[in-house]
């Protein structure tokens, strides 16, 4: 289909895909203005039968971009087909994951895509209330969204507001977001009931990531067949990823789903040192050896079949001469500190995991630490109100596999295999 995007192709690094979400003006810190947004993309489709858009989303195969990858159309249908009561839409831009910048970049530069998507969601599910939940530390994003919402007050449901999400890893979890919006308490609540069953003030609540909503804004205009034109490895579409660690041009990029890790790294200018390992998906994701995943398609289904996770689209590169055990230790300490401290296995288990990994990183293990790390990872999985312990356990288990020889070397010799440094004994 001949839909012309005004794309500037004179970039320094090769494009992997004709941009969709990031088409338009350069990412220079300024929000695209409503006038330009409409001139570039055309108007939002007129209010249509809510079933139409939900069907289109189901046909598109669009998956949620908050980390869980749940089909967007199916989620909307659950809220739209509720038994009674009005509904609420929460546009989730909390982005508490430190390794991810995609949501804040999207909100800062393309706020009207996000507003479009949220508005379409409210119409499709019959919501009278719309909350934009934006991480308070993402100041450019907060300001950009605040302006965009004010500018479009007339189009939005009467009860539309922006809530600044508190800083914190779990503040963006769906039930935590609703809990904070309702009661200023950013801690997850027990599920069931799901937010689609009973969320904000007991009403059916659609909590949707802002990147997912931006995708909806495009699918609603251009259709599911258009959406499916991109995608190389089975899962259709494009996605935003955050490149971090040892890569020449770190930051947010848009990729065609199914691009390989190696292709995406090259498009970001390549690395400065030999890569040893890669962390994929976020702090709640998985480590992998670079050589094992260089040809891996960044595609949720392909990755799942390899025991890896697409998550929030984070790709972090660890050089071969850096210590993966130390890097894991830092992540685990962070994750333990971010526990909401409500559930025993998370509260105690994550602290135990972090402390044991710190001992391994320092070359000062206690007897049983290696076995305990494996055992505790299994033990905390599935035993909490939210998936925070599951994510930490997953990262730990992958570290135990990928850095097995590094850990062994630390323990046996008191030296780091990667850096050559003598660890404190």
């Amino acid at each position, binding site marked *: 289909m001949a839909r012309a995007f005004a794309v500037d192709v004179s970039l320094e690094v090769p494009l992997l895909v004709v941009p969709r979400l990031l088409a338009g003006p350069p990412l220079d810190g300024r929000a695209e203005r409503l006038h330009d947004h409409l001139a570039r993309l055309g108007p939002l489709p007129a209010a249509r039968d809510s079933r139409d858009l939900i069907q289109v989303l189901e046909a598109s195969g669009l998956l949620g971009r908050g980390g869980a990858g749940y089909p967007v159309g199916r989620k909307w249908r659950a809220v739209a087909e509720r038994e009674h009561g009005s509904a609420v839409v929460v546009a989730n831009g909390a982005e508490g994951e430190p390794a991810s910048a995609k949501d804040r970049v999207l909100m800062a530069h393309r706020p009207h895509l996000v507003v479009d998507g949220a508005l379409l969601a409210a119409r499709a599910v019959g919501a009278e209330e719309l909350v934009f939940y934006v991480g308070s530390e993402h100041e450019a994003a907060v300001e950009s969204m605040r302006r965009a919402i004010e500018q479009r007050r007339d189009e939005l449901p009467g009860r539309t507001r922006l809530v600044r999400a508190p800083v914190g890893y779990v503040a963006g979890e769906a039930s935590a977001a609703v809990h904070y919006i309702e009661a200023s308490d950013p801690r997850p609540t*027990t599920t069931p009931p799901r937010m689609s069953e009973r969320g904000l003030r007991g009403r059916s609540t659609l909590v949707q990531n802002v990147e997912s909503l931006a995708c909806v804004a495009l699918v609603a205009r251009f259709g599911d067949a258009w959406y499916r034109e991109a995608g190389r490895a089975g899962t259709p579409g494009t996605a935003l990823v955050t490149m971090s660690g040892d890569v020449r041009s770190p930051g947010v990029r848009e990729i065609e789903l199914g691009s390989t890790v190696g292709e995406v790294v090259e498009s970001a200018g390549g690395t400065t040192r030999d890569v040893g390992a890669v962390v994929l998906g976020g702090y709640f994701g998985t480590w992998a050896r670079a050589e094992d995943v260089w040809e891996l398609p960044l595609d949720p289904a392909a990755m799942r079949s390899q025991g890896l996770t697409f998550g929030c689209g984070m790709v972090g590169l660890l050089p071969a001469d850096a210590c993966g055990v130390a890097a894991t230790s830092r992540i685990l300490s962070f994750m333990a500190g971010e526990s909401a401290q409500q*559930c*025993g*296995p998370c509260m105690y*288990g994550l602290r135990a995991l972090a402390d044991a990994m710190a001992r391994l990183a320092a070359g000062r293990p206690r007897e049983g630490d290696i076995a305990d790390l494996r055992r505790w990872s299994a*033990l905390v999985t*599935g*035993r*909490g109100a939210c998936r925070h312990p599951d994510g930490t356990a997953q990262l730990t288990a992958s570290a135990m596999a990928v850095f097995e020889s590094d850990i062994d070397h630390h323990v046996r010799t008191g030296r780091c295999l990667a850096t050559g440094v003598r660890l404190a004994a």
Partner: protein
Amino acid sequence: MEQRLRVDWIRCDGYGLCSDLAPDLIDLDDWRYPVLRTVPLEGALLHEAQRAIDCCPMAALKLVRASRDRDRG
């Protein structure tokens, strides 16, 4: 439809009474929080489960219909 125990992790404070009362169904982890065994709840085991539910000081245990969801607590 088959029933199973479920722990409300926010309510649970790790008293461990449940494991004392239902030793065939509930073990305690390193930090004294319940680990549920996957056994069918019927007859005497269902009876044990109900006693554990009734005696939990935090009312953190309940019976739910078994589902495909991940349910280790």
